[in-house]
């Protein structure tokens, strides 16, 4: 408790601005490749509220990773074309100069990557990797920054942090390295953390620990988090809202509970159905989705999922369905010409759970 109050002194929560933290409007990101134009993100729009956790789920080639890098403005410039708008705290990211971006990165927006081994500098002690951005963005002196680094390592659950700051990345285990990555990302108390598959390279028992650390710190600091994952399990219990991506577009977005209770898009349902569950008995035949994720260079006409969809009609094969709100819930949007009837799908719901 005392620790929490100390922290809020260090990181004043400034929520005077009530609008959304991040506004993405009709974002399109394409790359020129030898095979042709690759439409990685194809008209994505969403808002992210302050303190909200948004999960972005999709298979390979769904555009989820490019979307998160677009928000950071971290994509390599060559062959890149972007249109639309990404507004972060009133700053237009797409037209921001490198100087402006540098004041945002680490300080206001930061990122946790999938592989901590390649995103940490192997020849720099982890203490210095944390203090570097602290001193750059907050102007702390060396002793202050060192004390803060130790405090951050404590917060992410690293035992004996005073010793650990002097370690190199290779002296830590995979889970510890990912904790260090989170400490670095949170060092300057950013408003938005983009976590791109933060637990994919970790073991099951460690994965849960890392997600808990992230969730705890988010709540304490009232940050917004975008959690990108291919794994529905990772986002199901840790998010307020979930956006499902397919073929570079958001095909369904809804508050987490609502999504699992009343999924409208056949792809979302098929994705859930094809995931094996612990609660199912052995040898249950999985409902596989035929075919494979689309090629972003040659997206199918109409709805990108239509070639694999068992509900597809002629209209699905020719016209792209717009992202529209559900009749009974304005916060539930989906892009489908033949949405599933909004009867609750067979999922056990506990009475206590409610949308945020």
């Amino acid at each position, binding site marked *: 408790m005392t620790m929490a109050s100390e922290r809020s002194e260090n990181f004043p929560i400034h929520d005077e601005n009530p609008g959304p933290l991040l506004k993405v409007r009709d974002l399109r990101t394409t790359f020129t490749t030898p095979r042709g134009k690759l439409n990685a993100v194809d008209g994505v729009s969403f808002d992210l509220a302050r303190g909200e956790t948004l999960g972005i789920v999709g298979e390979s080639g769904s555009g989820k990773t490019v979307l998160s890098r677009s928000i950071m403005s971290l994509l390599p410039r060559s062959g890149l074309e972007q249109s639309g708008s990404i507004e972060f705290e009133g700053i237009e990211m797409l037209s921001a100069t490198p100087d402006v971006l540098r004041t945002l990165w680490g300080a206001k927006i930061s990122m946790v990557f999938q592989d901590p081994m390649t995103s940490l500098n192997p020849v720099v002690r982890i203490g210095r990797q944390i203090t570097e951005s602290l001193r750059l963005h907050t102007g702390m002196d060396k002793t202050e920054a060192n004390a803060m680094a130790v405090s951050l390592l404590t917060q992410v659950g690293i035992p004996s942090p005073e010793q650990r700051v002097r370690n190199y990345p290779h002296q830590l285990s995979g889970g510890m390295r990912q904790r260090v990555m989170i400490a670095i990302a949170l060092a300057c108390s950013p408003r938005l953390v983009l976590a791109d598959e933060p637990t994919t390279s970790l073991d099951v028992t460690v994965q849960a620990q890392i997600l808990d650390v992230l969730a705890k710190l988010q709540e304490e600091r009232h940050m917004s988090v975008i959690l990108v994952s291919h794994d529905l399990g990772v986002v199901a219990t840790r998010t307020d809202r979930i956006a499902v991506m397919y073929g570079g577009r958001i095909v369904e977005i809804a508050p987490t509970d609502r999504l699992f209770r009343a999924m409208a898009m056949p792809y979302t349902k098929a994705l859930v159905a094809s995931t094996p569950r612990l609660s199912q008995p052995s*040898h249950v035949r999985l409902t596989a989705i035929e*075919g494979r994720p689309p*090629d972003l260079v040659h997206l199918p006409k109409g709805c990108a999922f239509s070639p694999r969809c068992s509900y597809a009609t002629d209209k699905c094969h020719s016209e792209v369905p717009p992202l529209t709100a559900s009749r009974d819930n304005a916060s539930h949007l989906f892009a489908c010409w033949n949405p599933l009837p909004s009867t609750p799908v067979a999922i056990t719901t506990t009475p206590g759970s409610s949308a945020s």
Partner: protein
Amino acid sequence: MSNIPTAADSIPALTGSSDIAKKKRFDVGLVFWIFTLWIAITVLAAIFASLLGLQDPNQGNYDILNQGPTTAHWFGTDDLGRDIFSRVIYGARVSLTVGFGALTIGMIIGGTLGMIAAYRRGPVDIIVSSASYVMLAFPALVAVIAIVAFWGHEIWKITIIIGVASIPLVFRVVRAATLSYATRDFVTAAKSQGATDWRIITKELFPNVLPAIISFYLIGVASVIILEGALAFLGLSVQPPTASWGNMISESRTYLSQNPWLVLFPSLAMVFFLVALNLIGDILRSTLDVQESQL
């Protein structure tokens, strides 16, 4: 388990991959073919020099000493009145024999050892690798000079000596290239199917290492041609009057101010040939690497 679907969840053909299939075609550009053509012309000219109706490269003519290019003598004549054009082509024979010959020896021995060492690892690797380090630690040029001076200047001796000297270098390159494939699962799969070591090396590893071998071979040949030139400069290559690019340049030193043609043409022949070899090696490697990375 009663429901065994016939063609089960069979996938709808190969949508999306057909364009990759078209791309795989060997796309190297015009430059590559121009340089390949140049190398082919040089090699063919060297092989069939005697059928080209050239003037005798060693037949002097004291009436036409140190002439510039004329219609009779395209590249001019040298200090003994010999035809430079003819000597450049006959000289290519020596330079190319040494270059390709030595590298072929190096590739056969060093390449085989490299693949075996990378595949088998363990004691075999340790012994051969250590031997290669010992050889590499010895200054190759000095060793070659010493042995040539001691053993003789015949073209086949020079070829063997340089060939043997190139073995440890080839070994290291091929070993490194093989190593990245030797641990892949398809090698393990072949092993578990009962493939013999020899079959794994020739059928699974060799085709994958081949691009690296070819590009290193070409660049290696270029280096050996330069080495032959250096030996000639020290008077240790084939002996006059036999021409090689190296000793033509070497002999022309003293006439540089009177007859620049004498040094120009063999140098140009050598430079063009070496540039072509290096470029082709480079283009081949990057093209084949791209194909690999498309995986």
